[in-house]
């Protein structure tokens, strides 16, 4: 099934193309890595899918619907920078999410927070950056969505927590949903990816099954990425 379909998408800021002629189809039941250097266009693409930016031209369909109120209900989005009110206690944020999203499973969120040793009576502002990121991820993964979009979810956390987060993503994702993870920390994450999308200079350079690409290039995804973009 086509979960996400993007046809001839372009995005210009002034005269500069930020995204150029993007065509992309994503089906359900997949974990997909959106990989690219800083400034390649990853976040712009994600924001367009989430209806936070308007494309210059082109079409985006999510389960056949154009982006808007309906599609926001079925996309669970973790932005690169948190929008949560840091003066709130985690417990209050949970209630806020439960009010705001019909598909938010508060019991599941509480369980995940407990597993991560996070105190729901604590103010967000009193938590470390890594702890705040974990809270953000728990909130997003506790919604029963069709598409999860995580923009750089691993940036501020230590390697052990990174593994825990990846395992959380793996064990919480179901075959009806897909997860798009944008990152430049490729080697940490590539073991869980079904597909990778390399985005460079606003265009899709590669969209492939992960193991097929490894076999074809006889290298890790991280290595292939480095070779291709020489960084």
């Amino acid at each position: 099934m086509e979960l996400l379909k993007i046809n001839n998408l372009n995005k210009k800021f002034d005269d500069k193309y930020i995204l150029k002629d993007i065509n992309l189809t994503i089906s359900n039941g997949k974990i997909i890595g959106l990989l690219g250097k800083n400034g390649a266009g990853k976040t712009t693409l994600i924001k367009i899918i989430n209806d936070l930016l308007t494309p210059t031209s082109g079409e985006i369909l999510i389960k056949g619907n154009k982006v808007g109120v309906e599609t926001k209900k079925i996309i669970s989005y973790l932005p690169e920078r948190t929008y949560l009110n840091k003066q709130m206690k985690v417990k209050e944020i949970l209630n806020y999410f439960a009010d705001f999203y019909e598909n938010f499973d508060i019991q599941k969120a509480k369980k995940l927070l407990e597993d991560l040793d996070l105190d729901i009576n604590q103010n967000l502002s009193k938590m470390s950056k890594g702890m705040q990121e974990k809270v953000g991820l728990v909130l997003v993964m506790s919604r029963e969505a069709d598409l999860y979009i995580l923009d750089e979810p691993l940036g501020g956390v230590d390697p052990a927590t990174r593994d825990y987060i990846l395992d959380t993503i793996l064990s919480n994702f179901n075959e009806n949903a897909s997860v798009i993870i944008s990152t430049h920390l490729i080697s940490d994450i590539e073991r869980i990816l079904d597909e990778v999308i390399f985005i460079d200079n606003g265009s899709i350079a590669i969209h492939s099954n992960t193991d097929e690409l490894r076999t074809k290039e006889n290298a890790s995804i991280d290595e292939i990425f480095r070779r291709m973009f020489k960084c």
Partner: protein
Amino acid sequence: MEFVFDNNIPIYIQLLDYLKIYLISGVFKSGEKLPSVREFATSFKVNPNTMQKALSELESMKLIYTERTNGKFVTEDKELIEKLKDEYALTLAKSYFQGMKRIGLGKAESIKYLERIDE
């Protein structure tokens, strides 16, 4: 157990290797029911789709089979497992000799080294 994967090699191939060792060493015995794809994926900490691919590969080698409603089972054919063990041992032996050859040691000398190893 912590499973370590080499990102340079397709994950399903590495999973296939782990699974073969399970069958050879009798972790799962002939005719025994296997855990579900989901359970396997959780214990290996890999994507269920990748796990599925490794299991399909194992199935196409006739080492496991699917009973439509009951799940997956290890083959009843013990000879097949013995053959797998033989092939696997041969591969390991070959890679040992290759390594020795690289440092200029022939087969006879290499075997002497094996004899020097205490179990």
